[in-house]
Structure formats: structure tokens, C-alpha cells
């Protein structure tokens, strides 16, 4: 339980620091709205066919906005050399990973939960018809984005052009997860329940999350210490 205690300490620290400045989360909200707007121009929301696929478009918004939060995750440790202090402390790498990943998860989920109603308004879609299954997709998909994004945030923190490198490296790895999340969201937003063959996407999301969380836990120490 000491492990979990340290995880919570780090999560609390990240969230408290973010709430004081709100840099990442404001940028993320704003970006989500802008992208939603642009997508509304690209895909005419008044057409019935667009409304049917619109759930998939949501994940483009979520992924782009999420990257802003993820970038900040380890970048916030750079001023004052705070990362040194974190590494020097007797906190195991997996605890540091989980602490930061949970904080990122909370922040990105918050942005998504704000973007959803706005999306509902722009696209005139009643997205609440399959609310809880949709929430499950959000949770699973966002955790996939967060777990990989947090490790890669540490990987790219010292690189020039970090803001470009992070999405460049993360998005291809996420493709299977995005495929599943987009597919499920499109159906759920259109009000259809997930049944039969389509449940395979839930299995994909679960499996994806478990595999990559395990991998991230194991490799975090290596990334931090080089």
C-alpha cells in the first residue's frame, strides 16, 4: 500500500500544480473546441449520414487535445530541475509512471466530458442514448492514450521539437485502439447497442490497455534513467 500511497502523492501533486496554472487544460479545452468547429465545416453536420459517423470524429478531437496535456506531463518537471528531485527520491519507476498517468487521465477525461456536450450541440446528436457504454469506451480509450502518452512524454521530454515528436510517435502506436474506440463510439452515439460481432472492439480495447500498461510499468525506469 506504500506503493499506492506514493502513486497518489504524485497524482495529487500533478493535479494541484495544473489547477494552479491551468495552462495545459485551458489550451486543451480551447483546442478541442477549435477542432470540433473545423470538423463541423469539413463534414456537414446537418446531413444524416454525417451524424451516423460523427462518433468516430470525436476521437480525433480527443487525441489531439489529449496530446497537449500529455506533452505537459513531463515538461512541467523541467523548470528548476524538478525531474532530478523526482528521480532522486526513493520512488519506484512504476509508481512515478502510474502517478503521472492517473493525473493525465483525469485531465484528459475532463476535457472529453466537456467536448461531448459541445459536440452534441454542433452535430445535433443525442449522444446520451447509450450513455454508460459510451462512458466505458471513453475510459478504456483514454487510458490507452494516457498510458502510452505518459511513457512517450518522458521519452521525448528532452528532444528538440518535443511538441511534434510526441504525437508523431504516439499516434501510430495508438491506431488499433483508435480504430476500436472510433467504431464503438460511432455506433453508440448513433444510439445502437453493441452486440454480436461488434463486441470484439471492447475486447480489443481491454487487451490493448492491459498489454501497454504492463509494458509501460516495466519500461518506465529505463526511460527515466537512460
Amino acid at each position, binding site marked *: 500500500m506504500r506503493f499506492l500511497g506514493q502513486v497518489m502523492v504524485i497524482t495529487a501533486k500533478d493535479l494541484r500544480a495544473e489547477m494552479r496554472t491551468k495552462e495545459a487544460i485551458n489550451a486543451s479545452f480551447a483546442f478541442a473546441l477549435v477542432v470540433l468547429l473545423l470538423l463541423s465545416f469539413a463534414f456537414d453536420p446537418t446531413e444524416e449520414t454525417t451524424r451516423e459517423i460523427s462518433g468516430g470524429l470525436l476521437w480525433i478531437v480527443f487525441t489531439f487535445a489529449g496530446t497537449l496535456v500529455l506533452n505537459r506531463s513531463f515538461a512541467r518537471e523541467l523548470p528548476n530541475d524538478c525531474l532530478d528531485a523526482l528521480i532522486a527520491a526513493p520512488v519506484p519507476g512504476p509508481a512515478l509512471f502510474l502517478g503521472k498517468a492517473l493525473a493525465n487521465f483525469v485531465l484528459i477525461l475532463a476535457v472529453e466530458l466537456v467536448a461531448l456536450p459541445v459536440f452534441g450541440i454542433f452535430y445535433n446528436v443525442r449522444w446520451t442514448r447509450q450513455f454508460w457504454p459510451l462512458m466505458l469506451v471513453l475510459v478504456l480509450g483514454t487510458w490507452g492514450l494516457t498510458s502510452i502518452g505518459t511513457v512517450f512524454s518522458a521519452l521525448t521530454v*528532452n528532444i528538440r521539437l518535443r511538441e511534434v515528436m510526441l504525437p*508523431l*510517435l504516439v499516434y501510430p502506436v495508438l*491506431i*488499433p485502439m483508435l480504430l476500436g474506440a472510433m467504431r464503438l463510439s460511432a455506433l453508440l452515439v448513433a444510439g445502437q447497442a453493441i452486440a454480436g*460481432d461488434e463486441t*470484439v472492439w471492447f475486447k*480489443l480495447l481491454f487487451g490493448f490497455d492491459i498489454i501497454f500498461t504492463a*509494458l509501460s510499468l516495466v*519500461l518506465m525506469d529505463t526511460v527515466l534513467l537512460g
Partner: protein
Amino acid sequence: MRQKVMIAMLALAAVLLVRNLYVISMLPDEMRQGQIFRIIFFHVPAAASAMIGSAVALIASVLFLLTRNFKYDALAVAVTEVGLAFLAVNLVTGSIWARVIWGVWWAWDARLTSALICWILYAGYLILRQALEEPTQRATFAAVYSIFAFTDVPIVYFSIRWWRTLHPQPVFFSKSGSFPPDWSRAFLINMVAMFLLYAALTMIRLRQEETQREIDYLRRTVHAI
């Protein structure tokens, strides 16, 4: 010694390929697809070599992280670079085939789409390496990324396949038509030839990487004097 092995492999690969080109051109046309079907002799072995290459890259990356011996890092980058080239061959031949048979350059079929995603994944590996200057950090981070990429590959294949099964496309002629026995032999020989070519190119790249390290080491020693 290694030089001789490398040259021998290259020579053997060249001989096999040239002989095969002759054999392949002599084979009768496949019933439904005509001339273009011959492209499968290169299309499939290219993908098979790339797949084995990515497995070798994984093993090399894990071994580097465990031993911190830079020869594994050199192997990982060599095998990945050559693999990208072979995967590109796979994509281009697949695209040409699609254009001839289906009339479109890209048809979003399961295998080619997966191959494209894998190509992008491993291109990311090279981009990451380019962005990191310090050799130890570069090797370590690249190894971590390589492990993530390899873990993703089977998931990509499955997910794209499910995507295509749940949304069936119009039925085209399948890529693997009937395979007459004299074709099988030529196919296997080409497969071996491509593997040899892959191995030889990897060794060339490996040699280059090791020479670079030797130069770095000599420069270090000179600086220390």
C-alpha cells in the same frame, strides 16, 4: 571472415534472383490475373523478410537493454533500416498489383493497410534516433520504442483484419490464387534469395555502424591524450 560470408551471401542471392527472373518469366500466365501475378514472387517474400527483421530488432533491443552492449544497438538499427526498405518494396508491389487488378492504387485491404501502419511505426524509430544525439540515450530510448512498436504489430494486424471482416469489401479475386507445383518451387527459391539479400544488406549496414563506433572511440582516445 565476415566480409567473405557477406560477399558469398550477396553473390548467392544475386545468382538465385537472376535465375529466378528467368524461370518466372518462363512460367505460363496465371489464369485470371495474367502477367502481374508474378509480382507475388517479390511481394510476399519482402513482407516475410520484414516480419522476421522486426522480430530480430525486438530481440536486439531487449538484449541491448539487458547488457548495454552497443553491438545490439547496431544490429537493431541495421535490421530496422533494411526492414523498412523491404516493407516499402512490399507496399509498392502491392500497390502496383492493386492498380492492375482492381484499378485503384490503394484499396484499404487488410494486409496492405497493416503493412503501411507497420512501416510508419518503424519509420518513427528512425525519426526518434535522429532526434537524439547522445549515443547512450539514443540507443536506450530507441530500444524502448522498438519494444513498443513490436508489441503493437500483432495488435495492428488483428484489429485491421477485424475492421475489414466486419466491413466486407466487394469481393475481388483473392491474392493467393491456385499455386501450381512448379510455381511453388520458384516461389520458395525466391523466398530464400530475399532472405539472403536481407541478411547481406543488414551485414553491410552493421559493418558501417560498427566502423562509425570505432571512429568515435578513436576520436575519444585522441581527445584524452
